[in-house]
């Protein structure tokens, strides 16, 4: 089973979590002043990378808190998890908290 490290609860089984899509997407301050194309870009367009991807996850069958995770979309390995509001970490020095599929 894949273990995910919740920043509050530690390593917990994958079935307790739910993914909430890409992280670090700020809602525009003044949507009324945006063009339709820019608004559509904010709403629907995501990076969909091959490799490291910052995602929002919620530990809904646990502490109930949202957090961000850096996941490799190729290997499905969670490289790092971090609290909401924290900047995206540099993946290069994140290996010490790596969580691997067990």
């Amino acid at each position, binding site marked *: 089973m894949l273990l995910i490290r919740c920043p509050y609860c530690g390593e917990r089984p994958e079935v307790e979590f739910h993914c909430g899509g890409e992280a670090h997407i700020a809602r525009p301050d003044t949507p009324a002043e945006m063009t339709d194309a820019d608004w559509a870009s904010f709403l629907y367009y995501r990076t969909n990378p091959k490799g490291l991807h910052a995602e929002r996850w919620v530990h809904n069958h646990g502490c*109930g*808190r949202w957090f961000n995770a850096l996941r490799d979309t190729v290997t499905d390995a969670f490289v790092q998890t971090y609290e909401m509001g924290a900047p995206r970490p540099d993946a290069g020095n994140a290996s010490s908290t790596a969580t691997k599929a067990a």
Partner: protein
Amino acid sequence: MLEVNLARRTPAIRPAAVASAGPIRIAPETGEGRLSFRAKAKALGGREDVAGFAVDGAINSRKSDGDTASLRLGPDEWLFICPEGDIDDAMSAIERAMDGAAHSLVDVSHRDVTFTVSGQNADAVINAGCPLDLSLDRFPVGTASRTVFGKSDIVLARVGHHDFRVTTWRSFAPYVHGLLLDAAKDYAG
């Protein structure tokens, strides 16, 4: 005088106390009152307890004191347990202790049903539906956490080496009870 509690309480659903055939005891707890308490660290101001309920425990820990207990389920969420008859007094005491600081306090006594699961192999019975590692070094006595059991959301607390409490919503209770009894058949006789 103003009647404080206008809601008429009907008895919580209490499934029949079916004892499993084997050495594992699975029985609904009766007479247990539960309070859902939420407050940010700023509102708590570093205090160790609120009206006798500990709020200084680690996340996913259970602290008990006599017939009351405090389960910390998240950074700002606790489940307080006390005898059902003491609920109104406890709520008043907590309101006074918080003294206007932002918090949420809800009586969830009748929302939940708690089962005792105790006896040798009680951990294996719970692991029939729960993916957590329940070995003593990963889930020691005094641990409590929300998790899953089969298809149901539960709050699992370990009060002794072979003694667990499984708390679930009352509409899930027949399912959880049935799955526990079914899992316990492996250890019958």
